[in-house]
């Protein structure tokens, strides 16, 4: 199966209403931008994913909109970091 593990952090986790989920990767979704659009279309809880400040990491490395997404990847969505 072509599955992705998706993680949400901080206020994004609260808005989406879960910390993680397993998603069956729909055919044709091969980039971060396409995945974000797909998730965003699932409903109001996912609207926060459209916010431009939301960052994305693929397999624990920062990613851009055109970064490739494939089966087995760990995809994380989160707000700008505020540690230190």
């Amino acid at each position, binding site marked *: 199966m072509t599955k992705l593990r998706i993680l949400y952090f*901080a206020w994004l986790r609260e808005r989406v209403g879960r910390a993680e989920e397993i998603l069956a990767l729909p055919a044709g979704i091969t980039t971060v931008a396409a995945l974000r659009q797909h998730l965003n279309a699932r409903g109001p809880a996912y609207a926060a994913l459209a916010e431009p*400040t939301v960052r994305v990491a693929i397999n624990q490395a920062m990613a851009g909109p055109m970064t490739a997404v494939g089966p087995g990847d760990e995809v*994380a969505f989160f707000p700008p*970091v*505020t*540690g230190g």
Partner: protein
Amino acid sequence: MARVAVQTAPFDIAAELAALTAGRPDIGGIGSFIGTVRDTAGERKLTAMTLEHYPGMTERALADIVAEAGRRWPLLGVTVIHRVGRLTPGEGIVLVLAASAHRAAALAATGFLIDWLKTRAPFWKREHFADGSTAWVEAKAEDDAAAAAWATTSPAEI
């Protein structure tokens, strides 16, 4: 040479200094930064702060930042400890130690490490106020500017 840790427990600065310098008489200077929880956020009274992180990626990001510091300055040891969980005003959040033969590299590397940590390591702070409400801390433009300044400053200029 490098110690990176993400933990809920407080850090012991004296113990970390001793560990960093043990058996290293070639060290001539150690830069340090200790971040602590303030009791105010703007005008509001703060009672606590909760720090969330991305287990796995956080440790990896910190190791990458330490490695980058090692490429820029002749460091003889680095310690980065960041706490997570619930912290109250006065408690330490982050400890950065950078050791080198001379002070310029130690001090510059310390500044670089905390500036990059603040903008690149996946931690998020949530503030708890005296009235019981909470709010996620927003990223600051000045932190981005401080981190970006290092990208264009070569070690020779410091």
